[in-house]
């Protein structure tokens, strides 16, 4: 693949699917700087993965795979990373926050981050509307197993929602 073609594909993926990168970085990174670092690491791995993509799944499925696998490996390397951005001014952040943000989202992200690592991935995929088949491709689990886990996650989130409502009253 030519360098220009690779860059074109990468940029179109980032334009269309940057939300996936952000969501994974948000639930697997504990602090803002961790999320910036993980977002960058995922972006770099997506860049490396462009040449391996054969089109046998959708781009969003592929990017989720790369992003989740990177988050898994990133934990191993945590803190060793500064990635060549050490020479960039600290004010030059990679992520630019939208002007308005629904406060309910922070609550959802925090609850997802409380789940164990595998269930965090499932919760993200469930909320993003992936089918069981696609989740199976991304996670490597059987569809029936995914169904059971999703029900469990929904129940956990519903219980937390109920507790939240109860506490507010």
């Amino acid at each position: 693949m030519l360098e220009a073609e690779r860059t074109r594909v990468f940029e179109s993926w980032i334009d269309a699917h940057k939300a996936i990168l952000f969501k994974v970085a948000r639930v697997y990174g504990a602090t803002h700087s961790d999320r910036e670092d993980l977002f960058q690491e995922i972006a770099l791995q997506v860049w490396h993965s462009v040449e391996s993509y054969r089109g046998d799944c959708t781009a969003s499925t592929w990017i989720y795979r790369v992003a989740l696998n990177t988050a898994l490996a990133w934990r191993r390397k945590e803190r060793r990373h500064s990635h060549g951005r050490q020479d960039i001014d600290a004010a030059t952040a990679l992520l630019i926050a939208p002007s308005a943000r629904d406060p309910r989202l922070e609550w959802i992200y925090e609850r997802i981050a409380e789940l164990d690592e595998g269930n965090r991935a499932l919760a993200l995929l469930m909320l993003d509307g992936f089918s069981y088949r696609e989740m199976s491709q991304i996670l490597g689990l059987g569809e029936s197993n995914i169904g059971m886990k999703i029900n469990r996650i929904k129940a956990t989130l519903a219980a937390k929602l109920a507790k939240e409502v109860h506490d507010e009253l």
Partner: protein
Amino acid sequence: MNFDQMLEAWQAQTPYDVNRDALRQALDAEEIRVRRALRMHRRALWFMWIVGTGMAVWAGFWIAITITNGWPAIYAVASGVSLVVFALGVGAIWMGLGRRAELDRNFGNSLQEEARRSLALVDYQLSLARRAIFSVLGVLCFVVGTALFSWTVNKSQNISDVSSGRGWSLFALVFVALAIRALYKGRNERRMRKLKLEARQRHLRDLLAALDARE
């Protein structure tokens, strides 16, 4: 907020934007890093190849000279040992490279496959840490091989300064001091590395167990 409202808030979220200049810089830095790493790897490989093969050929040449000139058998034995040690060193490098390629990453892996691959990698790194004493012995063999070889050359050429008793005592002293330091440092580093790897191993096993579990 109920579950439907939660889904609604999720689907309506505005994603963060990406600073294109910072991302471009990160990609450029990554490309430079990858190219540099590849260049260093190739250089190291060539260096080891040239040194290992060169020393093996040189030792072979000395065996031939020893036999042809009818020198004492000890010279041929010393050269032979050097040759075997250098050949083993080159072989070990190739075996190490082969194993690394086997564990290289595949971007199309599912999370479960990736966790298994990572676990296999950690198991392999742990086995290396357990067998690290052989690496230390291997390095010592290289030093001994080089010493034997230089002794052979010096003796056969009657270079008395280096092969004199005082020269060899000094060499032995420096060699023992370096070996003790390397063993001590290596042991501490291995211990720290092992602790980290075992924590990672537990984490991956837990993740795989959680993924396989039918709740």
